[in-house]
Structure formats: structure tokens, C-alpha cells
């Protein structure tokens, strides 16, 4: 049963790590692009926001699966 909790923890942490790297890259490119061409900044911001909204969907699904493991598969451990 403890393995379920370890699996949930790994799922959440690795998903978060991937999203952090992705959003960091997106933000870095946004700043770089805005510095190069300030007139494009609002357009780049919109694209960044939409991209960020999609990038963090995968770790959130990971969190959802982890919650399933914690509350449904091993409810006694929670």
C-alpha cells in the first residue's frame, strides 16, 4: 500500500518538474521576444498564456491520477 503513495508522489513531482521546465522555457522566450520586438509583446503574451494553459494540463492529469490512487485505490492510507 505504501508503494501506492510513493507512486503518487513520483507522479506529482515528475509532472511538476516537466511543467516547470516547459513554462520556464516559454517565459524565457517570451521575454527574449518582447525585448527584441516590443511591438509584438501583446501578441506574444496571448500566445504565451494559451501555451502555458496547455503545458500544465499534463501534470494536472498526473495530479488527478495521483488523487485517484490515494483516495480510491488506497483509501485507508489517506
Amino acid at each position, binding site marked *: 500500500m505504501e508503494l501506492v503513495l510513493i507512486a503518487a508522489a513520483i507522479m506529482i513531482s515528475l509532472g511538476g518538474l516537466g511543467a516547470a521546465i516547459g513554462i520556464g522555457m516559454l517565459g524565457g522566450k517570451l521575454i527574449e521576444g518582447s525585448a527584441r520586438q516590443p511591438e509584438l509583446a501583446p501578441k506574444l503574451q496571448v500566445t504565451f498564456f494559451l501555451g502555458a*494553459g496547455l503545458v500544465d494540463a499534463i501534470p494536472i492529469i498526473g495530479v488527478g491520477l495521483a488523487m485517484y490512487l490515494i483516495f480510491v485505490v488506497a483509501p485507508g492510507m489517506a
Partner: protein
Amino acid sequence: MAGVHRIALMQLATLVPSCLLVWLALDETTALSWMCGGVVAVVPQAWFALKLFRARGVQPATEIARSALSGEAGKFLLSAAGFAAVFALLRPIEPGAVFAGYGVMLVVQTIGSWRMLMSREQKQTETPKQEL
């Protein structure tokens, strides 16, 4: 801002009929699970969009970064709390339907965002440029 509302409305307009279809085709438990998965997707996304599009435009970069951070953190926490509440409280539950509802709302969000970007670009190319 209007585009953001449009995406949330599009998600709700997909969620309710799809939930009814699932209810008619399968059963009440699956439909309720589907609905909960959809709501877990729509509410955090609406929060994220609200925070970010309020800070959009010509504003100091620190202000935009702060809004992005709070929007992202809020979305993550709301989603985690939503999934935890659904899986802890909803009985009987159909986990596959929860994730299916979430996934369908994600697809609707992706399509809505893509269409919003395309229409924005189209508007910009159609607007005649003023020559000095």
C-alpha cells in the same frame, strides 16, 4: 477578455449536452462522474484565464509575471483540490468517466484557444496598415 469568456462558455455548452448524452447512453453514475471531471477542468481554467487576461497588454513585466504566477498556482491548487474532492467524496464513482470528462474539456479548450488565436491573426491581417 471576451474570447476568454467565449472559451469557458464553449466548454460549458459542450459539458452539459455531453453529460446528458452519457446519462442517456450509459447510467447516472457515469454521467455524474463525467460532469465532475468537466467541472474540475472548467473552473481552474476560467480562474487562470481571468487572472492572466486581466494583466494583459502594456503593463510592467513584474505585474504580468505576478499575475501569471498567481493564475498558474491557483489553477494547479484548484485542480488538485477538485480531483481530491471528487475522488474522496463522490460515491459511487466511475474514474474513467471523470478523466474522460476532463479530457473532453481539455480538447474543447485547445480548439477554442486555437480558433481564438487564428481569428485574432486574421483580424490583424485584414486591418489595413496606415502609411505615414
